[in-house]
């Protein structure tokens, strides 16, 4: 069964959101410590203790023939509990062209850094619980095997899944380059699917090594660029690369303000079960010393 690929209507709300983003870029004060530009790969840098980061990102999936275009936005609230423990809460949704828009669930992730100092390779342990449904399309990680689905959102959203996901994050800073690799294992607690595996790896570098003295928005030090690659590695039921999706994706992050940045990545699908293109974009805003401000509200020590 094939579905026609509908054309996208020029959506006024999206245009307004883009204009708002550009406006923010023009009025926000200048820049903060560079974060890696990756969307899928994690490096070993955790959120600074007490800081809260709000991020909204989206994955726009361009379809193969017979499939539908989808738009999957998600919001993240990230908090640095200590220097070695960061927690993050996600809410996600999805809109498929010619179909409905649905809420697809929430995720709670935690990252722990076991070693205190910087080493040649820095490990981070990642544990995530996902309370999602089958309509999820944000593709924050690619695991197991992929099957193109023509099912309607209403049907997919009715199938709830509870998943546990673990990652081993290994990351190095080699001079000014960051090199990171993640090994992913995921277990669907709602079904007897075995464990599904995946990987992601990335390399990124700031475009300038020295900070200029003046405030500037467009200078190279505000940009960090790189490339990441990610995909599925099968499952314990079929440990093979058949029907696995893989992507290669240039990534760029632009620090547009003291606390805000945008990042963008066009991911190219490398196999026949991958989407041909995934366009990812995100905006993040960091509130420094948020925990201290909250503690002060409740009479804690500043």
């Amino acid at each position, binding site marked *: 069964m094939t579905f026609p690929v509908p054309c996208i209507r020029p959506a006024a709300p999206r245009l307004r959101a883009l204009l708002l983003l550009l406006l923010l870029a023009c009025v926000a004060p200048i820049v903060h410590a560079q974060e890696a530009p990756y969307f899928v790969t994690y490096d070993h*840098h955790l959120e600074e203790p007490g800081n809260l980061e709000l991020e909204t990102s989206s994955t726009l999936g361009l379809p193969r023939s017979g499939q539908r275009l989808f738009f999957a936005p998600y919001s993240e609230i990230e908090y640095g509990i*200590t220097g070695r423990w960061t927690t993050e809460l996600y809410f996600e949704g999805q809109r498929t062209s010619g179909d409905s828009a649905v809420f697809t669930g*929430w995720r709670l992730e935690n990252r722990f850094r076991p070693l205190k100092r910087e080493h040649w390779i820095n490990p981070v342990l990642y544990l995530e619980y996902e309370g999602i449904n089958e309509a999820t399309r944000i593709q924050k990680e690619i695991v197991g095997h992929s099957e193109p689905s023509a099912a309607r959102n209403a049907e997919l959203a009715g199938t709830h899944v509870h998943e546990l996901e673990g990652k081993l994050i290994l990351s190095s800073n080699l001079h000014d380059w960051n090199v990171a690799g993640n090994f992913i294992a995921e277990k669907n607690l709602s079904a007897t699917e075995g464990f599904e595996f995946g990987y992601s790896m990335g390399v990124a570098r700031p475009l300038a090594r020295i900070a200029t003295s003046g405030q500037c928005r467009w200078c190279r030090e505000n940009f960090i660029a790189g490339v990441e690659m990610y995909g599925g590695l099968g499952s314990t039921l079929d440990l093979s690369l058949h029907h696995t999706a893989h992507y290669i994706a240039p990534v760029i992050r632009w620090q547009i303000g003291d606390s805000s940045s945008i990042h963008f990545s066009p991911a190219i699908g490398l196999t026949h079960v991958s989407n041909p293109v995934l366009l990812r974009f995100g905006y993040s805003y960091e509130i420094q010393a948020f925990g201290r401000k909250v503690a002060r509200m409740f009479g804690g020590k500043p």
Partner: protein
Amino acid sequence: MIRLWTPFLPMLLIVPMAVAQNQNYQRDPSWRVPTEAIEKANPLAERPELAAGGKKLFTRNCVECHGKSGEGLKKAADLQLPVVQGQSDGALFWKITNGNPDRGMPSFSRLPELQRWQIVLYLRSLRRTESSQ
């Protein structure tokens, strides 16, 4: 299931925030810099004009805890003190790079190496003079 959980989700973040905030600053005697790091020279030592860029980086990354003049808020060290200024460039660079995560000082290894050295250049300008003491 999701509806039942939703009101409790913010609690998952707020509770750790409340318990994680703490304490006034106290020196950590276990935060020791390796000898080879202490001996490292600042590659930008001959380029003092780059301290201006260091000031910008300091303002963005350090002021929240160490204060505008590095005077130190309750949790963070006073960077003007002789006990800080008496440390070598290499030692300060190592501390900026590694942080002291168990005491709230984050690692800034995400900044390019030369930018961390620029911060060290700027820190030297915070040295308290006799008249200001």
